[in-house]
């Protein structure tokens, strides 16, 4: 069976777009082939800075013949409808259509036989369309052409044929670029054109022309060579997945070289050195395996085997890195000259958000809230307020201006350098955490208080300002902030009512109050509930249990996050056991009976049953059991003992079972029937103390 080889050779594709582009190419071509009835045995895709390559093998040489039926109008349809059908189906007269009976009468059906075409023709059309409509995140035109591509497209190589024969060129052209069987090697080391037959000789010839096609192989080569170079120098490569993928996307023929810089620069914090060398120069740093500290060396990945062995490349990179580090050192040292608190007045001139005031106002709010939260989390209030006051000050430093990702960390270094308490310095770094679902949550009380205050201020502020996330748009990363709050509370087991804290913040720090504020906070609490549900689902909690608990004890109503989660856990354990399963079954049976009867009678069976109307011992026993269970469960819930509440519920089970065994609900005596329905309803009411069982599935 024939194979397809496609290569799109262009000017340099941005590294960050390469992997997605390769995947898109594979998906789009194979999808379209499948739609055209062309199967394949396997497809592989490769990408370098200059080429996207797709290899599909085991494709049939022809499309299968296809038979399509198109349903038309009824046989007695008006003439225009029939004429339209003939046109659409490509029939010359209605005699060519078949008549088929249907439930509603006889219909015309056109049977269209489609002869399969040679696969190479179909593929030519597919490739042309895919290239024309390729989903680059950003594309451009060039010269006087009209094609839009990520950067100018230079040539297309497309061959098709079985392994045993000379493959054919897939004949198509896009914007004047005709597909052929030629490509080129490395831009500098082997720029000449050469012809290619199929994937095997293509890869081998590219390799000889100094192009390593497979990005995985380039990445491996870079990593292995860098590790070896480091090892030979007695140090260790600081591995970096982002950087590795970036440099893999910048070279076709990786050559790993090592350079060094003046050890005097090691007086700058390691993170600043690394950020300088990695972000600006896309080079790796190295560390001493003993101490874990950086050494004065770096690894650069060049794109060629230089004729001088890389001497000029190393010397050039060393010069640039020296200049960069000199800048960084200058920034760091001048930052140290001004105390963090002395930077704060500048915040008065920086707008945080037009409806939320200046950065200075924001910091004041965080200080107030952190002070309020401190006693709730066992933090020293004075230290907490100090940390909150200084937590954003490093945003005004030169180093953070240059490397925003070092915010917090630099604040800690500067705080330590100016002699702040260790817990204050730590909180300045940690108040941004957790930055994502994998990032660890701060544990130290001062850090926890400031981290919560920062995030809650942001969330309350944006909700009051009406800037809430919609769909995929969340420019202020409010989802992440909410998840951060949830994790801080749960992982530190903090008995805090988010609603109460948010209300306090709105009233005392933001100075807003009233029904509009209450509505905004309702919205925020509902948002927290959504995030909590997502979070718990990711931890494999059943979403129906989360719903059932939230509908009875919500954040909106001021319930504690921690207790809600404990309730879900207790409920989950309860329902895993036989008592829980049976009680749930009883509950479902009771509610389904009530629901049917309520619908039939068009009325609700709420309210207390009348004890005087109990006729059977099972009725009385159930009533008594419900009373007892309700009482006991309420008491347990009041003392946050959810397992106890579940145990109390479980005691209902024999009486519920016995009731369904012995008592007929739908009796002729209307009063008796009503009373029994009301009694059943009491089961629903009793369980509601713990959760809304009607939301539990199964």
């Amino acid at each position, binding site marked *: 069976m024939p194979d397809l080889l496609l290569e799109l050779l262009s*000017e*340099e594709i*941005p*590294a*960050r777009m390469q992997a997605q582009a390769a995947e898109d190419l594979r998906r789009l071509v194979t999808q379209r082939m499948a739609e055209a009835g062309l199967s394949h045995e396997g497809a592989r895709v490769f990408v370098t*800075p200059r080429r996207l390559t797709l290899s599909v093998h085991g494709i049939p040489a022809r499309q299968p013949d296809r038979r399509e039926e198109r349903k038309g109008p009824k046989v007695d349809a008006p003439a225009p409808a029939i004429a339209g059908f003939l046109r659409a189906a490509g029939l010359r007269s209605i005699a060519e259509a078949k008549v088929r009976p249907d439930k509603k009468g006889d219909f015309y059906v056109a049977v269209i036989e489609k002869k399969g075409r040679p696969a190479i023709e179909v593929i030519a059309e597919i490739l042309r369309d895919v290239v024309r409509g390729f989903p680059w995140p*950003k*594309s*451009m*035109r*060039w*010269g*006087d052409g009209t094609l839009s591509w*990520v*950067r*100018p497209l*230079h040539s297309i190589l497309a061959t098709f044929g079985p392994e045993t024969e000379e493959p054919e060129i897939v004949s198509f052209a896009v914007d004047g670029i005709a597909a052929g069987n030629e490509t080129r090697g490395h831009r*500098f080391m082997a720029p000449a054109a050469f012809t290619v037959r199929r994937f095997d000789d293509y890869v081998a010839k590219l390799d000889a022309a100094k192009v390593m096609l497979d990005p995985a192989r380039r990445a491996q080569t870079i990593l292995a060579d860098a590790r070896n170079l480091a090892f030979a120098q007695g140090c260790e490569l600081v591995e970096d997945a982002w950087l590795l993928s970036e440099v893999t996307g*910048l070279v076709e023929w990786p050559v790993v070289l090592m350079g060094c810089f003046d050890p005097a620069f090691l007086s700058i914090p390691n993170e600043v050195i690394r950020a300088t060398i990695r972000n600006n*120069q*896309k*080079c790796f740093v190295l560390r001493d395996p003993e101490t874990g500290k950086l050494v004065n060396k770096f690894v*650069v990945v*060049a*794109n*060629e085997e*230089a*004729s*001088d062995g890389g*001497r*000029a*490349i190393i*010397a*050039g*990179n060393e*010069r*640039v*890195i*020296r*200049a960069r580090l*000199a800048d960084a050192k200058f920034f760091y040292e001048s930052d140290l000259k001004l105390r963090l608190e002395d930077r704060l007045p500048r915040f008065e*001139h*920086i*707008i945080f958000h037009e409806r939320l005031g200046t950065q200075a106002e924001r910091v004041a709010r965080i200080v107030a809230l952190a002070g309020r939260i401190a006693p709730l989390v066992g933090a020293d209030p004075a230290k907490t307020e100090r940390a909150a006051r200084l937590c954003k000050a490093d945003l005004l430093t030169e180093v953070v201006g240059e490397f925003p990702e070092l915010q917090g960390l630099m604040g800690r270094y500067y705080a330590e350098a100016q002699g702040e308490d260790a817990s204050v310095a730590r909180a300045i770094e940690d108040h941004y955490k957790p930055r994502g679902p994998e990032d660890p949550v701060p544990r130290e009380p001062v850090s926890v208080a400031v981290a919560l205050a920062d995030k809650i201020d942001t969330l309350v502020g944006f909700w009051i300002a009406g800037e809430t996330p919609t769909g995929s748009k969340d420019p202020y990363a409010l989802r992440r902030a909410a998840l951060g709050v949830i994790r801080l509370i749960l992982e530190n087991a903090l008995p805090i009512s988010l609603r109460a804290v948010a209300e306090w913040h709105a009233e005392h720090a933001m100075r807003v109050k009233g029904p509009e504020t209450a509505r905004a906070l309702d919205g925020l609490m509902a948002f927290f509930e959504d995030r909590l549900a997502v979070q718990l689902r990711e931890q494999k909690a059943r979403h129906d249990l989360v719903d059932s608990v939230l509908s009875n004890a919500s954040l909106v109503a001021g319930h504690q996050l921690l207790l809600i989660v404990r309730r879900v856990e207790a409920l989950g354990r309860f329902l895993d056991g036989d008592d829980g399963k049976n009680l749930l079954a009883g509950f479902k049976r009771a509610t389904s009976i009530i629901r049917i009867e309520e619908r039939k009678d068009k009325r609700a069976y709420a309210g207390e049953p009348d004890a005087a109307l109990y006729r059977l011992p099972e009725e009385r026993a159930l009533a008594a059991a419900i009373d007892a269970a309700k009482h006991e469960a309420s008491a347990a819930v009041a003392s946050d003992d959810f397992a106890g509440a579940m145990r109390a519920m479980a005691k209902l089970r024999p009486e519920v079972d016995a009731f369904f065994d012995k008592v007929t609900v739908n009796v002729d005596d209307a009063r008796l029937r009503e009373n029994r329905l009301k009694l059943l309803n009491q089961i629903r009411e009793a369980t509601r103390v713990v959760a809304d069982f009607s939301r539990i599935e199964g």
Partner: protein
Amino acid sequence: MNPLDPARSFQGLILALQRYWAEWGCVILQPYDMEVGAGTFHPATTLRALGPRPWNAAYVQPSRRPKDGRYGENPNRLQHYYQFQVILKPSPPDIQDLYLNSLVAIGIDPKIHDIRFVEDDWESPTLGAWGLGWECWCDGMEVSQFTYFQQVAGFECAPVSGELTYGLERLAMYVQGVDRVFDLNFNGRDDDKKVTYGDVFLQAEQEYSRHNFEFADTAMLFEQFKMAEAACRRYLDLGWSADRKRHLMALPAYDQCIKASHIFNLLDARGVISVTERQSYILRVRELAKACGEAWLATEGGGATC
């Protein structure tokens, strides 16, 4: 020793680039005689990038960035520096090779230097322009900007121009192996006739930094901004033919747009423009640039045929 060796003298580097692009077929222009923030502002780029007519030009353009001044104390930062600008319209298919060969012409051999094209999208909010391309790295140093213009003055570019901008001081520092810009050898002499970049420009850097940051008359500048803006609008209005099909004063109007842009940069350096105002000033200049672009398209140079 050849004092005009591009690896030994700043002016030799400029001459080598001029010769290279002249031989290829560019017209070699002289710097535009107005203060601009980048070579792109030269009408030979901004306006000529618009419309259907082919255009190939190269020139040195002094670039003024009032905010980047450091009183001559920083080894790399200048408030006045030179860009070498090439514009090729339509961008030829071998433009990358042309660029690489120009590096060879100034002594950068890609056989021993690591030349890389690293993604860099260009946007000029004041010119209402954007394009895609790269920063060109030589051994880890950015030495040029390479852009395919997609839009200028709010108009789609068709054909597309390829724009190359060489940072001349950086390049010269690289080829001369110098770490401080003021130490560059300007004229390539090693005898008593040697002139350094510092000899030519250090005093200017000190004086202009003082002016830009401390003494530029802001009240006057605010007034000048308004005047330039009004003049631009007025020349645009007066330049249109009765049927609004032809424009007769696109270039003088555009001069005023350039002027407004530079005055805005000065005000910005003086720190008298707040964050929100900043946006509105940028927008005002952009509106001028767009109107000038529209006028240019109604001139002969802009391809108007009626």
